[in-house]
């Protein structure tokens, strides 16, 4: 009886060792596959979906810990969820990247229009301010205050326009358009205050 027990115990241990050894290979493969799947999308994921990237990394690190501890079964069991998470990460990063690229393309188009219009608006205002500055009387609807505001507005617009141009030159078209639009709004307001919008 005792012999039988020893034999059974030995057999059980042997089965467990074989089983464990059988899971080591797929566990290591699962980690390697996950790392291979993450590598090409890591940069985009960190840029566009950083929280989701962080969650996937945490999931991966947890399985790597299990692998290091020899808990291959946990790795094998957790691998499908990680695979699903990586797939979602890839899709989310691609979608966000597409959105961002579309926004940049839209901003570039807007910048093209603004960069054509704004210098002309500023030139037109500058010409009018130069002439009105020489006038002995201001036209109906234009006050000394509005002329003074137009003069100071020209200075601030030129500064803001320079900032917008610098942003565009550095490739930040979203910032460039935001700043340029503000300049255009200000220019429109000044043109109205100087009576330049009617004939």
């Amino acid at each position, binding site marked *: 009886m005792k012999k039988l027990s020893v034999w059974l115990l030995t057999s059980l241990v042997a089965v467990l060792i074989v089983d464990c050894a059988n899971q080591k290979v797929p566990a290591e493969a699962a980690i390697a596959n996950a790392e291979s799947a993450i590598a090409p999308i890591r940069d985009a994921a960190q840029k566009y979906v950083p929280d989701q990237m962080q969650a996937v990394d945490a999931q991966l690190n947890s399985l790597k810990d299990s692998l290091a501890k020899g808990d291959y079964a946990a790795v094998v069991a957790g691998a499908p969820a990680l695979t699903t998470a990586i797939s979602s990460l890839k899709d989310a990063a691609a979608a966000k990247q597409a959105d961002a690229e579309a926004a940049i393309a839209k901003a570039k188009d807007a910048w093209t229009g603004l960069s054509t219009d704004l210098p002309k608006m500023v030139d037109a205002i500058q010409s009018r301010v130069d002439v009105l500055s020489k*006038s*002995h009387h201001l*036209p109906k609807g234009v006050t000394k205050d509005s002329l003074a505001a137009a003069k100071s507005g020209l200075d601030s617009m030129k500064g803001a326009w320079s900032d917008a141009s610098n942003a565009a030159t550095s490739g930040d078209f979203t910032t460039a358009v935001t700043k340029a639009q503000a300049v255009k709004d200000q220019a429109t307001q000044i043109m109205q205050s100087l009576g330049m919008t009617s004939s």
Partner: protein
Amino acid sequence: MADDKTPAPAPDNPYTQTHVVVSGDTLSKIAQKYYGDASLYTKIFQANRDVLSDPNKISPGQKLRIP
């Protein structure tokens, strides 16, 4: 004619105000309207030298740039 150092607006600037001449208009009257000062008619004349050869000769229907 008065001295005029104001650069003429670019002919293709869509933001330069324009005035369509009507019967009875003179450059002085137009200058009075837009600048509040009739003596500044020369600014308008200089800005429209491509269509005006004489500040005293403008015709109804002419579209003038008002710098």
